[in-house]
């Protein structure tokens, strides 16, 4: 990957990646570490993988990498309770299945079903099914948590 291309991608995608990780974990410094790691990985890619990333929107690839790092970390499912309203939303997110949570967040970020499918490993035609289930699950947990 050329430096110029990586810089352009980072300029475009750094903030969405930060927000995605922050929403999943509620930890801004962790989000910054994940973003750094993801963009370093992007800069280090070469060969077929690099071609594949540059041929399509790199955003889905970046979100996929970020989600993989977050999955290994327990922040995504723990509720630190720093703030009741933040905790409520994060707790409701944490109660969803990993794929549901990621599909929902990626849809909210504007990705296509195909990109969501590629990043989460869900079959493309099942994405709306997963999203509907996730929206209902989220609503149930969030409304239940607030009442």
């Amino acid at each position: 990957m050329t430096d110029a291309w990586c810089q352009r991608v980072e300029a475009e995608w750094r903030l969405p990646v930060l927000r995605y990780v922050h929403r999943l974990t509620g930890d801004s410094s962790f989000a910054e570490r994940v973003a750094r790691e993801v963009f370093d990985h992007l800069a280090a890619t070469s060969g077929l993988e690099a071609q594949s990333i540059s041929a399509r929107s790199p955003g889905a690839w970046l979100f996929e990498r970020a989600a993989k790092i977050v999955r290994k970390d327990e922040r995504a499912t723990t509720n630190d309770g720093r703030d009741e309203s933040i905790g409520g939303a994060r707790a409701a997110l944490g109660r969803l299945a990993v794929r549901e949570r990621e599909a929902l967040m990626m849809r909210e970020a504007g990705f296509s079903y195909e990109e969501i499918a590629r990043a989460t490993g869900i079959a493309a035609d099942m994405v709306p099914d997963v999203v509907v289930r996730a929206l209902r699950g989220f609503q149930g947990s969030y409304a239940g948590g607030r009442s």
Partner: protein
Amino acid sequence: MTEQPKGARDVHWGATAPNESVADGAASLASGHPPDELLLAFADRALAANIEEPVARHIAGCATCAASIQTLHALDDTFRSALRTIDVSEPAEWGLRGERPRRVLDGLSPRDVAESGRGSRGRSRVKAGFKSRSRTKERLSSHSGSLTTSEYATVVGPRTLVQSMFAGSPWIRWAVLALLCGATVAIGITLWRVS
């Protein structure tokens, strides 16, 4: 690589070989109401034309499905507003607060937006009530360049219009101020002459 229209979820159900979900969805149209996932894909503009058309026809004449779509949008809105409660704890230096996520354009295709610029189908589609006003506002803000000023003001409200004008380039800001000053002076001179 084919350029996908922004705002349309680019997996088109029914565009490829028929699979179980599409067959189920299509069959459900013949036998009754489409399932919620089909309605969501419709609202996200992710259906292939050959599926979208019958679904649209069905929804147009079915209060139950129209209500189901409204319910899905309500769920979506709850989710979005819950996410905003997380976003308020973002560090200020990220500069993301209040910024809308990029490419959140689902439900309002570029065609709708372009047509809304001509004051036709797009805005009437919005007014038809598939989307709540706030969601519409969110989507149109990314495309405001293709709307006329009065149409943009109709959808987003005059206050937001003024805010967006002043958020633009400093030249626009100065031009607007100069116009306002000029108008004020002209009115003053006219009043002075009359009196």
